[in-house]
Structures are given as structure tokens and as C-alpha cells.
């Protein structure tokens, strides 16, 4: 087990810079998820940690030792690839044993480790098959098995679940998480699926265009997004973001939109009067109003998912989504009075996109 330190790392492909000075610390034994939209440089960063991609400038240290010039095989890491990269001509057993064989482990040790990993991953009955004869989920587990038999310092995962169907993905998510709790190995996990990130991570690193936008514990990132990008990216359904101007009247702060709708922002909002802001509220932080001040939302679509009811509607001219735990039989066109939970309102500076307060 070891920590991974990424210090001021840049990456250029030819003349194009794709990673612009990333600083991140992955603590020993933690499960860190790199999250970001496609093309933001997650895989590139992971591959630099693995040693598969050269580091243009900066430093990467594993277990306190700078590894910039250490070849991948000597970094003592294991990686699970998106396409699994199983050796098609080797049986499952040999796929898992290959790394140990190359490192000159004894036959008995290899056998014991492979069988142990197979037991953990429920692969014992497939040891004698070729990768082609396995289902996607089984292949995924073989790829995991190949990583864990080597007992490496750091596990790297590059979107290991993206080829699986939704149900299997949820199941494997739990399995990987359980495996981590059992092995307590430092893990870096790349995904663009924010649910995966939220559910699996000890720490989420949100990336965009080769920068880190925010890093922290999942709920912390969810509750206090640093900026508009993170606010919009984390959470599903996505946060409602409405542009407006701050107005203060008799002690209460409001954000008034271009078409004159006043959104209540709570007492502790720190935006200056008259400044342009983006008002953010998550759909599940909108409640039905029972009397008092309310927002009149005109229902456009109702999407019952079983667990909750998602209402897509219009507030003045802006689209707004609200999610309710209860079932409601709203009709399209109906006007429903709603109210945002004041302590869950986020305000962002309209210019810089930064969080206010």
C-alpha cells in the first residue's frame, strides 16, 4: 500500500497541452475517483500514474518515491482497462497467473494466489475457460483478478464498468467497493459517471479540460459545489441553474430573473445587492408550498420513476425540474405552487461562475 502524489503535472501531445498542471494527493488506502466529462484528461492522468504515458513536466510519486523515470513494470501497480485487455490466447487461470510467472514466483505460490483471487471473485468454475467464452461481467472480474493476484501498491481503474449493462454495473460497483474495503489498497478510479463516483469514492476529483475543478468527499462536493461546472455536473437530475439579479427587501434576499420571477435565497446569502448571480437549487430540494410565498410552476412533463416523481415545468420562461419523494398526479399545464428549501440554495457569481458564500 502506498500513497500517490501528483505534483504540478502537465501533459502535452505534440503541441497540444491536455493536462494543465494537476495537483492531487491520493492517500494511502483510499479510493479516489477521477470524474469528468469525456476528453477532460482523466485517462491521460491515470496512464501517467501507470507509466504508460510520459509526463511532460511535474512529478508523480508513489509511496513517496518519484517514479517519473520508472518503467511501468517496476512501479508495482495494477491496472484494469476499459476493454479489460485480457490475453485472448490464455485461459482465465493463465491470464491471472501471467504477472506472477513473469516475476518468477513459485508454482505453488502462483496457484494458491490465483485460486484465492478466483474464490474472492467467484471465478473458480471459469478458470479453465478462454476470455471469449465469458460474459462481459465475468471478463471484468478476470481483469480485476489479474490485478489483485499481484497484490500491488496501487490499483488503477479506467472506466472498468462502462461496457456493462446498467444492472450489472450497479452490482459490480458494489463488488469493487467491497473488494476495496477488504484489501484496503490505494485505488484510483476513472469514470465519467457521477453516480459511480458518488457511490464508490472516498474522495472525488472533478476534472474539466485538464484542470481540477474541485476535489473532496462525495457529499461535500455535492453539498457545496465550488463552481457552476461542478454544480451542474454532480447530481442527477442536474441542479436547476437560473440567472438573476440580487435584491434585498425587509431582511430577505431574493434573486430576480429577467422575466421578473423572484426566487427566495435565504437570509445568509452573501451576494451584494444588484449583482448578477446564478441561482442554483437541486430538484430534490424543491418542495410543494403549503401557503405563504411560493413559485408558480407550470407543469410540462411528469416522469414517475417509482421511487420519486420528477416534474419538469416552467417558471416564467425558465425550465425547472423538481423531484418529489411522494407520488403526485399532476397534469401537464397545471400550475403547482412550489418553494425551494432556503438552506439548500446555492449562489454563484454570474461572471466567474464561483460559489458565493
Amino acid at each position: 500500500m502506498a500513497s500517490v502524489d501528483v505534483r504540478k503535472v502537465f501533459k502535452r501531445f505534440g503541441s497540444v497541452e491536455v493536462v494543465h498542471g494537476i495537483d492531487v494527493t491520493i492517500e494511502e488506502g483510499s479510493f479516489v475517483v477521477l470524474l469528468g466529462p469525456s476528453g477532460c484528461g482523466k485517462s491521460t492522468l491515470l496512464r501517467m500514474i501507470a507509466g504508460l504515458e510520459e509526463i511532460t513536466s511535474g512529478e508523480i510519486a508513489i509511496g513517496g518515491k518519484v517514479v517519473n523515470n520508472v518503467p511501468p513494470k517496476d512501479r508495482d501497480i495494477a491496472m484494469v482497462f476499459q476493454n479489460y485487455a485480457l490475453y485472448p490466447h490464455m485461459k482465465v487461470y493463465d491470464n491471472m497467473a501471467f504477472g506472477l510467472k513473469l516475476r518468477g514466483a513459485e508454482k505453488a505460490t502462483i496457484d494458491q494466489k490465483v485460486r484465492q483471487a478466483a474464490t474472492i471473485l467467484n471465478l473458480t468454475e471459469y478458470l479453465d475457460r478462454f476470455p471469449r467464452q465469458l460474459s462481459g461481467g465475468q471478463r471484468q472480474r478476470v481483469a480485476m483478478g489479474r490485478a489483485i493476484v499481484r497484490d500491488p501498491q496501487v490499483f488503477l481503474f479506467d472506466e472498468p464498468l462502462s461496457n456493462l449493462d446498467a444492472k450489472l454495473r450497479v452490482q459490480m460497483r458494489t463488488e469493487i467497493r467491497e473488494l476495496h474495503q477488504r484489501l484496503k489498497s490505494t485505488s484510483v478510479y476513472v469514470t465519467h459517471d457521477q453516480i459511480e463516483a458518488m457511490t464508490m469514492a472516498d474522495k472525488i476529483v472533478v476534472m474539466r479540460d485538464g484542470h481540477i475543478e474541485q476535489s473532496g468527499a462525495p457529499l461535500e462536493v455535492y453539498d457545496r459545489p465550488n463552481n457552476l461546472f461542478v454544480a451542474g455536473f454532480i447530481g442527477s437530475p442536474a441542479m436547476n441553474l437560473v440567472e438573476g439579479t440580487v435584491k434585498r427587501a425587509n431582511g430577505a434576499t431574493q434573486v430576480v430573473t429577467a422575466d421578473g420571477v423572484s426566487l427566495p435565497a435565504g437570509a445568509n446569502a452573501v451576494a451584494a445587492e444588484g449583482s448578477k448571480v446564478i441561482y442554483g437549487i437541486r430538484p430534490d430540494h424543491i418542495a410543494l408550498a403549503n401557503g405563504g410565498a411560493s413559485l408558480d410552476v407550470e407543469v410540462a412533463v411528469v416522469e414517475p420513476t417509482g421511487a420519486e416523481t420528477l416534474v419538469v415545468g416552467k417558471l416564467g420562461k425558465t425550465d425547472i425540474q423538481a423531484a418529489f419523494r411522494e407520488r403526485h398526479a399532476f397534469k401537464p399545464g397545471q400550475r403547482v405552487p412550489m418553494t425551494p428549501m432556503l438552506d439548500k440554495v446555492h449562489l454563484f457569481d454570474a461572471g466567474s461562475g464561483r460559489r458565493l458564500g
Partner: protein
Amino acid sequence: MAATATALDPRSGAALEKLGRWLDNRTVLSVLFMFPAASILLVFLTYPLALGVWMGFTDVKIGRPGIFIGLENYISLFNDGVFLLSVFNTIVYTVVATIFKFGLGLWLALLLNHTIPFKAYVRAFVLLPYIIPTVLSAIAFWWIYDAQFSIISWGLSQFGLIDRYIDFLGVPWNARWSVIAANVWRGIPFVAICLLAGLQTISPSLYEAAALDGANSWQRFRHVTVPMLMPILAVVLTFSVLFTFTDFQLIYAITRGGPLNATHLMATLAFQRAIPGGQLGEGAAIATAMIPFLVGATIFSYYGLQRRKWQQGSQDD
């Protein structure tokens, strides 16, 4: 009109239905679909082949129809030193040339598979020996190997490595090595390009996985490249062996089988005996004697072509 008539007549309707069902039968359909291709093969492949084999059992000569003489041609060939020499030559030629073609071809393919500048041009350039008409390159080689004007001899003597020009085509083993070299030069592009195609189907992430598993570059070659390349290697090997074994043009243009029949291959000897020599029957017998060797190579390819066990199963990855 016919359609309405049949539709009205219930009996012919039933017959049509029967025909329809008969046409739906897989066996019937496959025979029907195979018929055009099979008849072309029959006319253009089987007939000449059968005729050749038949002629091997006769004493037909140019301008004179022959009679069936059984195995007489083959018996005389077995006691014919020149024929036996040609078998020996053919085997040496095929084995040695194939080893070199595959060794060098694989090496070239590996080089070309790296990221190199002007990749497309380099690849096109590599194909050049294969594109040039055989006879043209044979003439070039003939000139290169010329007793008086050989550029190789000239070069070596300029460096002071030899004091007498090498007689490339005048001494049996020199001549054998010379034609083998020419064949290798011509054959490498085919091998290299085929193997390059094979190399490019190997997913780079396999190499990355192997590198992380601790494999050095030799181990990556040994445990990833070679096994993944095996299926295509078997096929290319078979084709290459077939082409080399039946080679005619290069030899005929460079040495005509000389000196002292040292470079006569079975194909050139068959032609020599049959056309200039007029002994059609004997020439046909020599050509027929190649068949067992070729069938052997084809059987090898059959097993090589068979999908290996690890290739079976679903393709979705």
C-alpha cells in the same frame, strides 16, 4: 396472364407450392447456388488438372498423340538423376527461402509497426519488389550476378575484400544461393505486409497490460505478439510455401536451371522436358509429382487456418 391462370387452377397452384417448398430446402438451395461457381471451377481448374495428370500416364509427345503407359514415366523419373536433383533443389530452395523470407519479413513488419515518420510512404516503398514484374527483377538480378559486370563483385573488390570476381551463376552452390537471394528479395514484401496487417490487429492495450504485468520487450513479443500472430502466420506461411515451391519465372529468367541443372526446380524441369524437349508426358509426370508436396502444404494450412480454441466463442469485445 400466366400468374392468373395458375392462381385459378388449384392443381398447378399446389405444384407451385411444392416447388416453392423444395426451393426453401437448404440442401437444394446450396446446390443451386454453388452450381455456377462449381461449373467454372470444373471447366477451368479441374479439366486442365485432370488432363495434366492423365498425360503423365501416357507417352504423348508434341505432335504425336500418346498411349497409356501406366507408371512408366514415374519409374523412369525415379532413376533419373536430374529429376532427383530437381526435387532436392526445390526443397532446398523452398525451405531456405521461406526461412529467410519469414525471418526478415517479420522483422520488417515489426519495424513498420512502430511509429515512424512518413509511415505510408515507407510502407508503399516496401511493396516495390512485389509490384515490379518478376521478369524485370529477374533481369536486374541477372545483371547483378553477371560474371563480368556484377555490381556486388565490383563493390567487394573496391573494398579489397576479393581479388577475383565471383562467379555467381557458374558454380552450383553459388547459383543456388543467388536464386534463393532473388526469391527472398521478391517474397519479403508479401510476408511483411501480411504480417504487418496481423500486427495491427493486436490491441495496444494488450502490450500495456503485459508491460504492467512485468513483461520486458522480448517477453511481450514472445507472449503477446507471437501467439496473436500465429493464425495469420500459418496462412501466410502456406501461401508463401506454395508460391516458392512452384516458382518458375525467376529461375527460368536468371539461370534456366543451370549450371549443370543445379538450379532446376521441379517446375522449370517439367517445362524444360515438356515444351522445348517435346516430351509432354514426362513433363506432365514431373508436374504431377509436385502435387503430393502441395497437398501436404495445403493440409498444413487447413490445420493452421482452423480457428484456434481461444478464438472461438463470441466476438463482442
